[in-house]
Every structure is written in structure tokens, then in C-alpha cells.
């Protein structure tokens, strides 16, 4: 039954990513049309525009949320693909453990970086 739990959250995460990553795409890849959250003009990914977003609590919070949700969704998807290769039960446990540890590690890294740059950008704004 725990697989039901993982899968339900996988679906829910997918819907959340659709919205948040869709917003991320509107900012980054469709910025030429939307000019969302890129007040310094030019490319949406320029240093000034990046720093602008990093300094905003809305972006830091949604980046961390998107990071967590996307890591869960992506790594559960990878686990699904690997589980369909008829692994031994011990190998299945190992895969789950490695993906969990790797996912938590990357989440920690990304969250730490987001908070650090947010604090720095907020301090620079004064």
C-alpha cells in the first residue's frame, strides 16, 4: 500500500510542477514575449535579472518548493523505470535508498544556495 502513497504524491507533484515550472518557463524561455519578472530588460537570465529574482521572497520560496516537488517527481519516475527491469529485491531497496539520499542531498544543496543568495541580495538592497 505504500506504493499507492508514493504514486498519489507523484501525481500531485506533477500537477504542482505543471504550474510552477510553467511559470518558470514563462519567465525564462518565453521572456521575449512575456517580459515577466525581468525588469532590467535584455535576457531574462542576465545577471541583473537573476539577482532581482533572487532577492524576492516569492521567488526564493517558490524555487525551494519547485526544487523539492520536482526532485520527488523526477526521482520517483526514475525509480519506476528502474523497478521495471526485474531487479532483485535487495537491488530494489538499494535503488530506493540511493535515490532518497541523492534527492535529499540535492534538495539540501539547492535550498542552501537559494537562501544564501536571497540573504545576500536582500542585504545588498539595504
Amino acid at each position, binding site marked *: *500500500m505504500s*506504493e*499507492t*502513497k508514493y*504514486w*498519489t504524491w507523484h501525481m500531485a507533484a506533477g500537477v504542482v510542477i505543471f504550474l510552477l515550472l510553467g511559470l518558470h518557463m514563462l519567465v525564462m524561455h518565453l521572456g521575449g514575449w512575456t517580459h515577466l519578472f525581468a525588469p532590467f530588460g535584455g535576457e531574462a537570465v542576465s545577471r541583473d535579472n537573476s539577482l532581482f529574482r533572487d532577492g524576492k521572497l516569492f521567488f526564493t520560496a517558490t524555487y525551494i518548493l519547485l526544487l523539492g516537488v520536482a526532485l520527488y517527481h523526477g526521482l520517483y519516475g526514475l525509480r*519506476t523505470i528502474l*523497478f521495471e527491469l526485474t531487479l532483485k529485491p535487495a537491488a530494489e531497496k538499494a535503488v530506493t535508498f540511493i535515490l532518497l539520499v541523492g534527492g535529499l542531498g540535492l534538495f539540501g544543496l539547492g535550498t542552501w544556495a537559494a537562501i544564501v543568495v536571497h540573504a545576500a541580495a536582500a542585504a545588498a538592497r539595504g
Partner: protein
Amino acid sequence: MADDNKTVRDVKFHVTRYNPETDASPCVKTYTVPVREGMTVLDGLHYIKENLDASLAWRFSCRMGICGSCGMLLNGQPTLACNTQILHIAETQLTVGPLPNFEIIRDLVPDLMSMFEKHRALKPYIVRADEAEVNDPAGEFYQTPEQLEAYLQFTYCIKCGCCMAACPTLATDARYLGPMPLSAAQRYNQDTRDDGRPQRNQVTGSAHGAFRCHYAGECSRACPKGVDPAKAIQHLKRRLVLDYLRLARRKKACQKLHGPGQGQPPGNIPAAPPRTVTPSA
């Protein structure tokens, strides 16, 4: 009418042969079969056995698409040999192979035990909370046509294994339950006479259960009886999620009848005409 027995054309049958006692691996042998209008692949195999190669082995029984014995891979599609007319699927070349995703016992004979073991693990029978009722029934269960319709489609399964052969997940995951067992589970879960859903959920909700289905839909395309196992599995997933979130509606207990006159007849049945024959005393 006199033209019915005329050969339309010759079709080359490329049949997979495998004898475990002499062969290391399967090979393909070609036979030329004169095909008449209306001839099925099963007829073609009989022609080969009677006239060309008596050592060919395959399963068949009813020859009318109801027993599920003659499932095989015809021109890359898993289907019943008795249900498939040669001229409908082949011009001059026809490949005949055993159902994939099963071990081959010999020639075109697959070992379906893996499918049946998975089927058995899902308790494909009415499971009631009151065991005494099952063993010593006191009356019959009442089911409305709507309640029957909720699972009737999934009762038409003939266990031919074509859906299992078509499934992409089963191609690599030997532990995946597969479309046939999962739709059998859904058939019993949806039956109002059954109380076994929590027990079946333990198996269908496991790591190689319903969630390893990704709706490729090949099972429903292959099914020769219109069972639509893909639909059954999606409904099964929905029920698993609702049970996990504790949002499942409480099922009304199936009404039991004890003797005649206890059902609720629908109101639109006309009265019986008067008797024309007096029963003898």
C-alpha cells in the same frame, strides 16, 4: 458457391519452431499454405500439421474464440489464431510465433503458469466478510442491472494471455501483475457481493501492481473479447488512491433474498394473462 473451396493464393507461414530436447533456441521454419476464402490461421496450422509437418505443436480447443487456448503472435500482433482470417492480415507472408512475455514450452506453446499464479494471488473469487455465508448460503444476493454493469465488461475475459503479451511493462518486468490479473481484481472489487477489496489492495497497491501500468493501451487493443483491461486498471488505480485518501464511499451491503417474493419488482411489469390450462390436481 462452387468457388468457396478454390485457393485464393499461397501464403508463406514463417512459424517459430522450438523443441527443448533438441534445440538450443527457437528457429523459424517456412511452410507454404494454399489459402481459401474464410480460412483462419488455425485452419492454416492444421493444414501444415496434416500435410507438411506433423511435429508442429500448438494449443487450440473451441476454434470459435471463447476458450482462449490459441493465443499467438501473428504478424507481430498477439491475437487468437481461430479468430483471425489469414487473408485479412497477410498478403503472401505470415509470421506465426508464440505469445511473448511467457516462456516457450515448445513451438507455439507458451507457459501461462506465471499469469495464472499472479491471477491466483489476487483472490479472483467472491470474498465475503461472513465466511459462514459463503459455505452455507441462506439466500441469494440481489444485484441491480446498474450494479451488474459496473463489472460485467471485465467478466468476459477468457484468460488467453494476449493482453499480457502486448504489455510493454511485462516485456521487462517479470514481477508486474499484468492486465489480466489486474482487471480480474477490478471485476471482483466492483462486485457488490464481494468484501475482498482491502485484501486485494495489498497486492494491487504493491511495487509491481497497478501503478506499473502507464496506459500504453496495447492490452485493450489486443483483447479479442472487448474486456478493455486498460480501463479496468485505471479505475483500479482510482479506487486505490481513494482508499488511501480514505475518500472511498461506504458500500451499501448487498441485499440478500430468502425465498421468493422478497425482491422489489419494477413497477412496469404488466399483469399475467389469465390461465388457459388448469393444472391437474
